[in-house]
């Protein structure tokens, strides 16, 4: 199960019904798109990590939960917003600070997005602007 890719990130925003509302993958520059097979693995891991996120969020006063789970070479960090949305990041190279900053910035972005009266909470985020900005933040905090 050991995969050779490294330095990649998978980010997912989870709604209140534990449903993925937004997901994005960051790959280091120069890395080819991974094979399609791996996309679902990210989701599998993120899904299983939800258990630990839900356990850990009661143990901490912080909204950034740091590493909550590990799966093979993957680390899972989480961030729980005030409204109990959960951000989950899967990554294989420790980068605590970058991830924390990324989470914080995405949270800001999300809040701006969520005040849009046409956005129904927990529904999949399909805004291309949001996607673009999250990708930018990813480049800024994670891949640099």
């Amino acid at each position, binding site marked *: *199960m*050991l995969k050779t890719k*490294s330095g990649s990130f998978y980010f997912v925003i989870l*709604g*209140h*019904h*534990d*449903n*993925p509302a937004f997901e994005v993958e960051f790959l280091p520059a120069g890395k080819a798109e991974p094979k*399609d097979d791996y*996309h*679902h693995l990210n*989701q*599998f*891991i993120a*899904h*299983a990590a*939800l*258990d*630990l996120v839900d*356990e850990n969020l009661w143990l901490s006063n912080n909204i950034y939960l740091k590493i909550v789970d*590990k799966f*093979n*070479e993957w*680390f899972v960090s989480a961030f729980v917003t005030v409204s109990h949305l959960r951000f989950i990041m899967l990554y*294989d*190279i*420790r980068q605590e600070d970058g991830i924390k900053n990324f989470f914080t910035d995405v949270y800001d972005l999300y809040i701006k997005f969520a005040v849009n009266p046409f956005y129904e909470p*927990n*529904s*999949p985020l399909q805004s291309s602007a949001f996607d673009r900005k999250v990708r930018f933040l990813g480049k800024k905090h994670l891949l640099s």
Partner: protein
Amino acid sequence: MKAPLQNLVSTVMRPLFTPLSAAFCLLSTCSCAGEQNLFTSIYPTLSQQLPREPMEWRRSYGRAPKMIHLESNFVQFKEELLPKEGNKALLTFPFLHIYWTECCDTEVYKATVKDDLTKWQNVLKAHGSVDWLIVVVENDAKKKNKTNILPRTSIVDKIRNDFCNKQSDRCVVLSDPLKDSSRTQESWNAFLTKLRTLLLMSFTKNLGKFEDDMRTLREKRTEPGWSFCDYFMVQEELAFVFEMLQQFEDALVQYDELDALFSQYVVNFGAGDGANWLTFFCQPVKSWNGLVLRKPIDMEKRELVQRREATLLDLRSYLFSRQCTLLLFLQRPWEVAQRALELLHSCVQELRLLEVSVPPGALDCWVFLSCLEVLQRIEGCCDRAQIDSNIAHMVGLWSYATEKLKSLGYLCGLVSEKGPDSEDLNRTVDLLAGLGAERPETANAAQSPYKKLKEALSSVEAFEKHYLDLSQATIEMYTSIGRTRSARLVGKDLAEFHMRKRSPQKAESYLQGALKSYLAEGWALPVTHTRKQLAECQKHLGQVENYLQTSSLLASDHHLTEEEREYFCQEILSFARGSADSPGHKVVLPMHSFAQLQDLLFDPPNAVVHAGGILSLEMTMCSQMPVPVQVDQITVNVHFSIEKNSYRKTAEWLTKHKTPNGIIHFPAEGSPLPAAQNSLPALELSEVFERSPSDNSLSTAGIICRNVHMLLRRQESGSSLEVPSGVALEDGAHVLKCSSVTLEPGANRVAFRTQAKEPGTYTLRQLCATVGPVWFVLPHIYPIVQYDVYSQEPQLHVEPLADSLLAGIPQKVKFTVTTGHYTVKNGDSLQLSNVEAMLVLCQGENRAVIYSNSRGTVQAEESHTAVFRIQSSDKVTSIGLPATPAYHVIEFELEVLSLPSAPVCSGESATLGTPEPPRKQKDRQRGAPCMVTTDHKVSIDCPWSIYSTVIALTFNVPFRTTHSLLSAGTRKYIQVCVQNLSELDFQLAESNLVDTRDTANLQLTPLNVPSPQHIHSKQSVFFVWELKWTQEPPPALHCQFSVGFSPASEERLRISLKPYTYQFQVESFFRVTAQPFLLVLENVRLRRLESSGQGFPKTRSLWHECWGTLYNVKAEVLPPVGAEYCRTGSLCSLEVSITRLADLLEVDRDEALTGSDEYFCTKLMYEVVDNSSNWAVCGKSCGVISMPVAAQATHRVHMEVMPLFAGYLPLPDVRLFKYLPHHSAHSSQLDADSWIENDSLSVDKHPDDQLDCSSMRSRGSVYSASSGEHKGLPMPRLQALPTGQVFNSSMGTQVLVIPSQDDHVLEVSVT
């Protein structure tokens, strides 16, 4: 050098978790010099006494002081033991050097002891050691033996003098140590205190120096030659010391610092900042025998580190084993588990970062072994209950071990069906070789990680057993602590394993469980992936229905590639083709994955259709399949219900209550991402207050959740989201069908047509698409879609086209035939039974408009016209209806003419005959008079019914006619007033008045304009005829007025209209009446009738109208004598002359008539009234005169009047009444019926006259006859003279009044 370490080891091998005392133990080393025998004798007591009392240990760097017990090792002093320059060791040399002597003899001291001491001191000085103590043991026994001994103090003083300059405390005396006396005890205590203080001082000093050295060394880490391993050894020494002092926390900190330092280096290495020494750790991994946690110190690995030969795994393993040991001392086994998991992950990461070459599977082995080792170590030191309550900490390791064993199994070919091949076996052998030999400490144990791994890799069966055990255990643990998602993931792996092992029946439940969880939370990719596995599983299990269902879901899954989707679609289609031959067997699948209903369109749009009508229905189905699918048929199951509410069936109601455009949209079910559906209900919280019953103060406040049972329910066990395959098929009689449809991917339009049968409501229930034996069923169509079929009875409506019908002119009437379920055939006709007074005018061709019943939404072209015939016979008018299908409406118009029947002359005209101004006003106030109406009832026979329909048509007579008799002297005129009440204008022509009795000597001369006259709406036209008679006129004149009329607007009428006629009669007074008494009686009887509410009109015919003039009243105002004109304010005389024009007539025979055979008199009352207040009547304004009944008999009355205004003033009115004196017979009658008498006058007089009388009274009139105040008294009565009997010849004359001369203001009134 090993000695202290072994000591240390023996210390730490104490049983774990003995409760620690408040103080700690320092085990230090002292070297002993001097007299060995002496020490040997003292040692037992010393070693026993030393740790007894704790000492406070003050520490540097602000660390909290601690109480510690001191313990010491005593070794023979040797020079080699002293630390050499640059020695970093801390515990390997003695801290304190003690010289023991028993000498009490100065000689001996001088001879040997002093030299020995000097030598000892020099050695110490040479090594820079300042921690020393000289102990002089005194012995009383010895003292006694030697008499020449010097005073005791001398030896001690000598020693102090010789060696302890300024440090006199470095020399202590121990008196009689082996005795049991108080002195001995004191001496011991002082000695021990000193020893402890010095030991601790020395230790603290050494420790501080060591820490400083260590830090210095650490700061040099950037220097090229720095070695982590060397530094490791130094810091570990410190850790050992802390551990020895039982300062495990501090010891652990040392290892954690080492751990962090190393990790940081690895991370930096990954970032390109490599340190030379790290390359030592980058050697390829050759051994992966896992962690060793059973020994407190893994000396083997420690030596490797010391020799700088350790690999990364060795270093990590050793470091962790030490951390583990310390954590267990600290009773934190769960942290061990947690750290172990972290360690295993980070080791894997570090190896990757350092790009260490690792044989495949080696790390898996290492991780697996390590996991099990940690778990066994923890289990070894905890009881069951502790473990059970801390599963959360352990389960990660279990899971990791499971994961690694699985990947090992896959790697070594133990999962495949065929078993491992040679390559796999080779790999297995290599992996096992890397494990090395089993360690001696577990070699004899029945179970060890090593044995387990070896066994698991030995055979397919063993692997399966171990893997299943591990997986099951992990799943159970995860489930028990509520981490169901993680359990699902392990379960899914297990399912995959089972699938590989060709036991799909075992895999299915795991896959279903996982799928349910992913579906519930809307994880699309895991759903797809799990479904794919489930499909394979179901295929193997031969679950046709489930497999097809899953296939249909996958075929519509956009997360799969096009090829995969097509594959699954083909699976369904090939199944459908393959089993087409076996009829009867059908597979029912839910439709939503196959196709989705988007919208539905009815035609007619209101979804209301009459019985037998055609209803078409077009639905848009969005096919989810990747390829076009040929569907055998699409059926819609329809539920039929008879609406009980009868009004709902009417077409009108249905039209109103349907969607206007007939399109029903269905919400898109399930977006591509299956959204979470089991949203929990909101918390229902409420406050709870409990008050103490005594003083009502609040004792408890709280919040309770009222729907806990809903919220805390396990989510899994909630409603299953996957539609159960067993969809109930409805088998209704009513079905809409559409055969052979090809559903292209995407939207398709499917049209259904049906002929409506029974009336009622039809609800679309199920939608079903059939592909061979595969039925895709949408079990419920929601929102509810209905169409209604209604049946209608044929109906005929006849209504006027205008607001009201006018009699006498042709009027249009609209016939509306709603055919309903009846089909009008050629030859069907409406039979109208003729009414005499109403004609149906049939002319030319008649056109009927026929249109479909469902009006309102139908386009205009659906209506068309048809010609129909009307045949009239005497009694029946037959309207031949055009052939019309059912549920259509035939509309046509017919002209009818109501013949103007001569309205019965009502007596109304008689009263209105006197054109008195106030009365007219009254009429106007009463509002516009209503038109007289005539009802015609037409009975119509309809072809669809055996019963006749009776229709009433109401016609309004447009005119109202009144007549009046006018007099001019003795000349009589008849005036007829025609009032147009309608909204139309008419032309009147050929007015004619005839005497119907055709009295011979009567002539009616018209005085009218001969040309046609226009009569506008709401206006009147008057006609006047002079009545001339030559002989005595008949008692009554019967007249008929007729006038031709036609609507003024209409250019030309097709038919000639009948003239308007009006019949009336004018009765003369020549009739011979019966006896007066009789008349009165008659009158009374009449009044009784009146009071009982009937017979009033009769009065008119009974009360005779007299048209012959009897009296001529002439009034004249004369100016005062001598004046030429009347002046205002001056009295003028009013001369009234009443002249009788005829002799005794029949009309005169009443109570007023008095006299005898030839000479008759009648009593009249005159009255002068001036309503316009022009005149003031002075004196009597009325009076009774006795009028001789003879022609030309004249009575003159003279009165004085005063004009009040100047100008031409009309003369005051003079009224004449018949004065009927009271009669005794009459009066007695009245007594009997007093109610009559009360208003006796009002019967005869108009109410207005009463008003006049009262005004007269106010002017001082004597006239008081009308008042009812003399009740019971006999009263004369007044009777108005009928119209025509009195002619006022001075009516209309005016007299000129000039203003009085002394008036300053000239008032002129012109009338």
